[in-house]
């Protein structure tokens, strides 16, 4: 499912115009993005949580050439699936 399919499903599910569903989706995604950009975590019960991990600068190698390079400090978001969603997804395993 992609964003436009989600918007369409949202519009139908709560019976609002497509335009409104699209704006709400944007607000939700932007709110989450801004929280992560501030370094804040996100916790949505039943769905999952996001945390930001910070990495210091380190010396790495270009895996293609083997050349040493300095990797700059960086932050990356990690998602941990919530218990309810994890169990429901796993219940449909092959």
């Amino acid at each position, binding site marked *: *499912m*992609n*964003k436009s399919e*989600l918007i369409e*499903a*949202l519009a139908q*599910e*709560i019976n*609002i115009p497509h335009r*409104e*569903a699209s*704006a*709400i*989706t944007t*607000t*939700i*995604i932007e*709110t*989450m*993005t801004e*929280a*992560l*950009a*501030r*370094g*804040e*975590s*996100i*916790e*949505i*019960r*039943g*769905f*999952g*949580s*996001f945390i*930001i991990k910070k990495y210091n600068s380190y010396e790495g190698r270009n895996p293609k050439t083997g050349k040493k390079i300095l990797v700059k400090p*960086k*932050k*990356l*978001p*990690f*998602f941990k*699936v919530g218990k309810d*969603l*994890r169990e*429901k*997804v*796993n219940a*449909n*395993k*092959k």
Partner: protein
Amino acid sequence: MALTKADLVQQVYKHHEGLTKTQATDSVEAFLRISKDSLISGSDLLLSGFGKFNVKDKNSRRGRNPQTGAELTLDARRVVTFKPSGILRDKINAS
């Protein structure tokens, strides 16, 4: 302080003047329910500009209890993984 569902509802309410608090709550709940249902049914969820949630089937494998060292078999399972979009990564590292 972590961002919660209540914060999402608050932001939707604030940015959409036509919505009552109840409608804002319903829309956030519906957004999450639709997202979850997609993953539960086994379909990936792609939120462009944010990231992609993948559903992956893992084979069973032999593992060890790290505390006791005892060998055990881990059953096959289905998991959700998340890959952040380049846009999200850039925004997180801009500050």
